[in-house]
Every structure is written in C-alpha cells, then in structure tokens.
C-alpha cells in the first residue's frame, strides 16, 4: 500500500505586532515543525503501513527550510520525502498550492491514499485536501477520525455536522483529511533521527521537474491576494479595572444587578416583586 502524506511546515510563529506605532515581527516558539493535524495524518499513515505493508511518502511545498519538517516526518517513520521548492512557488494560495501538489503526485507512482490535515480554526484553511482531490479528479473524505481495514476494503469514520458516518472507499486513490485520530502521535526514537538524516531519501523538485508553467503556481497562479493585516477593532469600550480586587467585585456585582435584575435580597427576581432597597 502506498500512502502519500501532504504536510505543511508550521512557521515558527512570527506575528506582526504594532510596537510603539511600528510593525515588527514577534517570534513565538513552537514545538516541532509539523502542524498538529498533519501529524495526525502522518500517524494514521504509519499505522496503515504497519497493518498492510507498504510505503509512506511525505510531501511538502515550501521554501528550502521546509526540509526540516520533512526530516522530522522521516524521523517519525516515513520512508521517503519529497520537497517541492522553487522561488516560483512562493506566495501561493490554496488554488495554486493544490495545482502544484497535484502535479507532483501525478509524477509519482500512483498512491492508494493521500492524507492531509483537515481545516482547523487555528492554522490553515483545510482547503488544500479537497482542492487536491478535485485537481486529480478523485474523491475525498474530510474530517476523518478513524481508518479501518476490513478484508480488502478501507473504511473511514468521520463526523460531519453532528452526524457520524462510516464510509467505504470503493475506488483508490482517495484523499482523506484528518481532524484528529483516537491515538496520539508516537514519540521519536533516537536512532530514527539518525536515519532521517543519513539513510532515507529526500528529493527536491522545482518548477521545471513538475512541468508546470510559472503562471500556474505561486503568487502568479493564485486567485486571491492579501492586501493587509490589521488588529481586530476594539468592539466595545471596556472599563478596565486593576489592582483592587474588592472594588472589582463590587463593580461586577453592580453590572450584574442592572443587567440581570438581581437585587440586594439576592437571586434573580423581577424588580416589580422585590424592589431593591435604595
């Protein structure tokens, strides 16, 4: 069984912040390089390989340092890695990213399954999985929680809009996107890290190898364009209290009184029945 896992390197968080009127980047450390949901996808791939014998190939599109994320995936157990990197790929939205990934997949030996992380509200939009499937003309199942092997069949379980579904994949390859799986990702043993750097193959492909033209990839191939970042507008005029917890509690009680018709006798009552002492 050949399983492809598309991962995205999570950047060490560099958040633009306004400091004394100037925009600067503040860095935030993150453990690991692979986004949480892609890790789930990788874990699912490794388990499937254990059950069925086969090969797990990890794939990412990114700048040269995205190789670190691939090394981590190899250390966690993937067999091969492919980095799609080219200056032309920069600035890609999901439309261009899915075009690039799909073309790379066409150039590899046909996989049985293609796994990615699903959307999360925290990182990424999760559009790449379905758009990849659309580009390749294959089905996708989103929000997969479990993959089950039953004889020759592959079944997946997922939850969508408060319904749990069990689906049999009748045709391969199929794209599966993962939200979470029951078991957490495994720890990485030390000798694996050594293998990741010395033994396992990592290829790098650019624009020419993929056979795409520059207007199909990167910013040129994107349909959307970022026009700016901004801080969310302050929605309410908050009165902010500091330092004096007792006073704070008093203010909170006053606010509750007037909003909830609490009165000095306690509890929530209709003011008409229990007018407050004034």
């Amino acid at each position, binding site marked *: 069984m050949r399983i492809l896992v598309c991962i995205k390197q999570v950047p060490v968080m560099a*958040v*633009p912040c306004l400091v004394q009127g100037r925009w600067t980047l503040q860095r935030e450390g993150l453990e690991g390089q692979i986004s949480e949901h892609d890790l789930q996808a990788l874990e699912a791939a490794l388990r499937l390989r254990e059950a069925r014998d086969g090969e797990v190939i990890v794939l990412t599109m990114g700048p040269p340092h995205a190789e670190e994320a691939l090394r981590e995936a190899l250390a966690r157990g993937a067999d091969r890695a492919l980095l799609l990197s080219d200056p032309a790929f920069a600035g890609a939205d999901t*439309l261009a990213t*899915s075009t690039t990934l799909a073309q790379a997949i066409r150039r590899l030996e046909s996989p049985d399954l293609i796994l990615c992380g699903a*959307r*999360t*509200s*925290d*990182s990424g*939009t*999760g*559009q790449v999985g*379905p*758009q990849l*499937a*659309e*580009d390749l003309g*294959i*089905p*996708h*199942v*989103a929000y997969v929680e479990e993959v089950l092997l039953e004889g020759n069949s592959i079944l997946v379980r997922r*939850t*969508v*809009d408060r*319904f*749990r*579904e*069990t*689906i*049999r994949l*009748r045709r391969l390859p199929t794209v599966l996107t993962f939200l979470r799986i029951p078991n957490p990702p495994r720890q990485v043993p030390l000798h694996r890290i050594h293998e990741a750097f010395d033994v396992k193959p990592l290829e790098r492909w650019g624009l020419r190898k993929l056979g795409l033209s520059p207007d199909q990839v990167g910013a040129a191939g994107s*349909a*959307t364009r*970022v*026009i*700016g*970042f*901004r801080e*969310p*507008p*302050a*929605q*309410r*005029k*908050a*009165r*902010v209290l*500091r*330092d004096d*917890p007792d006073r704070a*509690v008093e203010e*909170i009680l006053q*606010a*509750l009184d007037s*909003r*909830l018709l609490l009165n000095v006798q*306690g*509890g*929530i009552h209709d003011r008409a029945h229990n007018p407050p002492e004034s």
Partner: protein
Amino acid sequence: MTERTTPPNPEVWVFGDHRDYFKNRVTLELLAHGRSLAEALDTRCAVAVLGHRIETYIMEYIAHGAQAVYAMTAPHLAHFKVTTYARALVEMVRIYRPSVLLIGGTDFGMEFAPRVAKQLETGLSADCVELRVDPTNGALVQTAPAFGGRLLVDVITPDRRPQMATVRPGIFQERPHDPEATAPVFYVDPVPLEENDPLEVLEVEPLQEEECSLEEAQVVVSGGRGMGSDQGFSLLHRLARLLGGEVGGTRPAVIQGWIPKERMIGQTGRAVRPKVLLTFGTSGALQYTAAIRRTEFIIAVDRDPDAPIFRTADLGVVGDALDILPRLIRALEARKGTKEVSDAESARG
C-alpha cells in the same frame, strides 16, 4: 428549460444550505449580509438552492431577503453529496455568472466550497468574519482571522469570478421574516447523478450529545487556559449556579479536559448570545470573540493587561481569575444568605 439570460449586473449569491432548516440559520444570516453587499454593488442578492421538495425553503429564503432564487430540483438531489452538489452549483454559476458566492461555514460547506472554487478556478477565503465592498473598485474585501486568531487578514480576488467566501454561523444577523416579499424563481435543469459512486456510505448516525442549552442561556460563565485546572473550573460552575447560568469554555479548556466539547464556545463550537457573559482566563482569540460578540454585556477577567479580550469586553478586570472568582462567589452567597434569612423571617411573619 433553463432561461439563459445573464442578469445585467453580476449578482451576489448565497448557497442555500437547508439541512436541519429551523436550527441551521447560516443561509439566512448570509442572505441578510448579502443584501447589503448587493446594494453596495448595485445588484441583487440571490440564493442558489439544490434538492428535492424544497418549496418551503424557497419561500423561506424569499421571506428572509433573497431577491431572486436559482433552483435545481430532482429526486436524486435530495441528499447533500459534495461531488454532486459541487457539479450542480458550478453549472448554475457558469450559466448566471454571479460576482460573489457565499457559502455557510458548516462542516459540509467547508469541504464543499473548496471543490466548487477549484472547479471554477477562483479564489476562496474561509472563515470570514467580515465582508465588505471596497468603494473605490467594487472588490469584495474578505477578512479572516490569521496567526492563530491574533490578527485579521484582508484578502481580495482581483481577477477571477465569482469571489467566494465561507462564513461560519453566528457572524451575521438574519433579517426578520417578511411574508409580503416576492421574488422570481429560475429553475435550472438538474445535473445527473454520477455513475458508480466511489464513496459508499454504510452508516449514518446522529451524535449523541449532552443536552446543552448554552446557546439559549441568558447568563454564561466561561473559562479558558487561565483557569489552570479542574478546580478552577469548579469555581465557574459554582458561580454559574448562583447566577442561574450555563458554563462554557474555550478550546484550550476542552483540550485540557476541564470541560466537554459540547460546551466549547468558539468558531468550531457554540455561539452564545446571553444578557451577560462572565469570561475568566480567556485571552480573547478571534475564534472565541467571534462566538461571543452578540452578548449584551461582557465581563472579562484576565491576568494579562494586554489581552485582546479587553477590547471585546464592556467591563474588564486585570487580575487573577482564581483570586477574583472566590471573592465574587462569597459576595453573591452572602447576599443569598441575607435573603434566605429575611425570607425565613417574613415566613414566620
């Protein structure tokens, strides 16, 4: 027969997600906002709806603001199947060429919209919290959370059409039902079902969820990472009981196991609109603040004076939730004690 006249001014379309209709209001919310976008674009707002026996939904959408309806009905369209519906909506878009296409950010919408956008080779912004028209060039400015919710990013789709966006439930407000409204309905020839469906659905069962009236509660007490522990959360439960409210939490609190996921308040969880929300130890990520924005009065307690939650709150307290909460609880219990004594006295009368 499909009428093939393209409307003079490309329209603003909203996809009619009519599953679980009376609970699932996202289409109505998008219709309301779509009307204001359409006005800014000097065009009309229409709904595109697929399915079987959808007469009542067509009428409801007209009542809630759709100025035109594009409908594709057939028995084989009864079920919301991503691939069939994507082909169907793409077909309708290709005929009528709307300028904007909005899809509700339900789970279905979030996996359906990308396939539609890819088939149309156009752009899609997910999870938009704002949508407005740039008056200088008529472009739809699509605003979504970025960097873990700390910032907003503004995106446009300069050349391709339609400009697509998904928006989660609770971001916009629906218009009231207007029984006097009327609108033209354009019927489109149905696309066929695909042969040899590659995905076989073996079983569908509704999730057994804890009964939760968080969304209807008048008082909500909520906690986040700053609560620190289960014990912290039990203080929230005590406060909620004293106020007759419900308890909710943010995603970090769910991940820590301090609160079940049915009580998660956030973009992928519940949206609340109580009279009062007391929120403790929640820094105020956009995914959370978007889900609480319809509260009448927000009281926030957090240790960090720069926490974004203070820009969403009406009353903010910089302090340790684990210090403020016991004081607040004691004060409320003291009042109750006074009341119980005086009730007992008047009973003895």
